[in-house]
């Protein structure tokens, strides 16, 4: 390492040390969290509320998705058109969706517009118009998104996989059901809005080129008058492992696997994430090497960690043509079994290096940083510093990983396949 390199490393490290999320809880219970990235001209904001398919009333599946769309169609004094124009006048880029146990509204904009953007974001959840004329188009859009799933087999696979694996309401698709969407009424969804659009339990996360005083003042001014308590997120429950095939006309068979993993933020979750990265963190990882590089069975194969509140899971995916589906699944399962024999120090080192540099690189993006903060506060009740996450990943040793793998075998996965014909042998019950 040259002296230049050392200087560069020191600068990089101190940059990480200076990254501190600041958190405030407003009197109404809304959690506000912010991480300054003063070199950026932009700010990204994510507002997360604890409603989603898990909070949809029984028989009215799809409520959250329709509500998420409807609240964006006019708020405060502005009708749908005027509200959209107001955001676009400020150059705001918008995103977000209703998910399983939470829904998000994401806005990115130039830092100079912060004070103008916050009241518009707040109006969506505090003073949505929910005009009758906008209800049918909002529902119609949700119906079309649901129908589009038939032409998106990978997305459909994951919906089917989570429905098979998660038995608590989080297992329902955020897209809802045709029956649920048909049963919705404007009055019913308005009542749901009054129930779920509440500050207690919600998180407003921001990151970018503003300072904390400005952010907090803008958040307080915009959201201070909001009141009430949002819905409780139900506890997660999972099914006993099983196998299922969903028939669909497609060129490839979609293969999905799911099994439980340690809850987010725990020591075990850090170790588990290293394991997942040994399996699938990169092109040199085991799944890519065995399934794609050596055998050419797939273009895409992966395993990854996903969390719900208080619950972690590992999901696996492979897509391959029908005649090779058996072999693909066999090789995938063999790689899960092989974990019991342990991993090498080199594998752990490579997995960690990849995780660490990806943390630093995601930390350069305002929207990725706002997303990380929001998910931390929502799932863990607090925002970890980048430094804390980095040092906890760094502290995982090969001994930790092998001890974890020897005491806790990979659980039998729930397996769902989706494709043109029932896959024989390997997925027979």
């Amino acid at each position: 390492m040259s002296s230049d390199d050392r200087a560069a490393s020191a600068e990089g490290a101190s940059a990480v040390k200076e990254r501190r999320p600041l958190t405030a809880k407003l009197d109404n219970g809304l959690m506000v969290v912010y991480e300054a990235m003063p070199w950026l001209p932009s700010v990204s904001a994510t507002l997360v509320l604890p409603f989603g398919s898990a909070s949809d009333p029984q028989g009215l599946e799809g409520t959250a998705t329709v509500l998420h769309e409807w609240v964006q169609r006019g708020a405060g004094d502005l009708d749908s058109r005027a509200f959209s124009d107001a955001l676009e006048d400020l150059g705001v880029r918008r995103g977000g969706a209703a998910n399983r146990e939470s829904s998000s509204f994401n806005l990115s904009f130039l830092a100079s517009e912060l004070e103008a953007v916050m009241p518009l974001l707040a109006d969506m959840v505090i003073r949505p118009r929910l005009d009758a004329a906008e209800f049918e188009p909002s529902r119609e859009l949700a119906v079309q998104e649901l129908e589009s799933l038939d032409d998106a087999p990978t997305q459909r696979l994951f919906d089917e996989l989570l429905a098979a694996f998660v038995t608590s309401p989080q297992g329902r698709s955020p897209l809802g059901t045709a029956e649920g969407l048909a049963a919705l009424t404007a009055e019913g969804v308005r009542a749901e809005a009054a129930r779920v659009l509440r500050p207690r339990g919600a998180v407003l996360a921001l990151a970018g080129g503003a300072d904390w005083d400005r952010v907090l003042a803008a958040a307080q001014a915009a959201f201070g008058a909001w009141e009430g308590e949002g819905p409780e997120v139900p506890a997660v429950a999972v099914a006993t492992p099983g196998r299922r095939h969903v028939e669909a006309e497609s060129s490839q068979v979609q293969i999905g696997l799911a099994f439980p993993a340690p809850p987010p933020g725990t020591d075990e979750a850090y170790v588990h994430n290293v394991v997942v990265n040994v399996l699938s963190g990169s092109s040199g990882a085991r799944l890519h090497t065995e399934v794609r590089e050596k055998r050419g069975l797939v273009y895409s194969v992966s395993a990854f960690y996903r969390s719900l509140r208080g619950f972690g899971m590992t999901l696996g995916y492979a897509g391959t043509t029908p005649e090779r589906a058996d072999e693909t699944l066999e090789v995938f399962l063999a790689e899960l079994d092989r974990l019991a024999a342990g991993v090498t120090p080199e594998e752990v080192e490579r997995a960690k290096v990849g995780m660490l540099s990806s943390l630093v690189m995601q930390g350069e993006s305002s929207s990725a940083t706002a997303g990380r903060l929001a998910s931390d506060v929502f799932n863990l009740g607090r925002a970890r510093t980048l430094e804390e996450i980095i040092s906890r990943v760094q502290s995982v040793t090969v001994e930790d990983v092998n001890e974890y793998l020897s005491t806790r075998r990979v659980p039998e996965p729930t397996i769902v396949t989706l494709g043109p014909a029932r896959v024989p042998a390997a997925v027979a019950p």
Partner: protein
Amino acid sequence: MTLDAPTPLAGEVAQRLRFDKAVLPNGLTVIGEHNPGAASVAAGFFVQTGSRDEQAELAGVSHFLEHMAFKGNERYTADDLNRLFDELGAQYNASTSEERTIYYGAVLPERLPRLLELLSELMRPALRQEDFDVEKKVILEEIAMYEDRPHFHVFDVSAPRFWAGHPLGNSVLGTRESISALTRDQMLAYYQRRYSPTNLVLAIVGRYDWDAVLDQAERIAGSWPTFDAPRERPPAAPATGREGVVDPKLSRVHVAYYAPGVAISDPRRFAAAVLGYVLGDATGSRLYWELVDKGLADSASLGHEAHEDQGAFVGYVSSAPERAEEVIARYVEVLRRAQDEPPTPDEWRRAQRKLATGLTLRAETPLGRLPSFGATYQSLGVYQSVAELVDRVMNARIETAVELLQARPFDSGYVFTLGPGQRA
């Protein structure tokens, strides 16, 4: 016309950036955008080759070759390369388009020399027969995967028809037939025709030491032999009208739309891009209000794509089969009408600001900035900072859009449908 000055913050960042450039004796161009505040550095080889440089019997070779580059050479096996990239903690990948193949990665700054070394190994692949045979299966799986994604597939099927024989219509993936028939020797010959240092740009964005980069580039790439790698740029006569393919497996109708646009070298491309946002951005555009807002389609978009010597407005809409005719008619009508009702100042300003915000956000990370930095330089031979791009967008004039619309591009639109056909 009023101008919005870039925000002071954007200006400050711009002042800290430095553009570096050198051309090695063998013709390899090395460029850098130095940002002392970046926490990472991204680097990539931009090869000016893609599906437009393929004859019919080679369809898909550029993309297949991109895969083969990761299979190693005399020095490294594929496993070695994967392992070495992993040891750097590199986020790395490659992509192939009609015009360009890019091999790129991002690492923490102290690891840049090793990243550059590995990227340069990718440029000298062995193209071993046994690797070629295994990777052919992967490519065929990739083709099958995209067949299951009709919102991509519709463009693969329709582009050759719209471009009507112009090489910009060539499929990047190729077909099952072309890939199955392709030989390793054909790929080698293609590589030897296209991967000349004169046809490559090495681009670097983020925190780096320029002198060290240049020394290393000379050491690594200085001996690569130079040859001519010309590209054909025939005139285009794009199709108009409507065609379609029936696929009974599908649930929805997927529609690709094309109309003539302007090339990347045309200064009107900024106005064309803003016009694309006015008409077809995902939110708040004319197509959004006509189709998505009303719940008639779940997606309706249009954007302007500027290629080296040609350009096109390219759009997409999907709909339930029973409503497809109405949706297509409304989609086309929005665009036709725009020729007589050009953007209002309000619409124009909103589109400009959204475009400017998007440019700024993408440039937050070195890896996000790299593709446009390298590609713009490779296509135009000029450096454009993000601040300058934002300025160009904010200074684009409605009058230029009016001029583009007066050529009535949407009277020559081309509509292609991929859907289940008539339902019983």
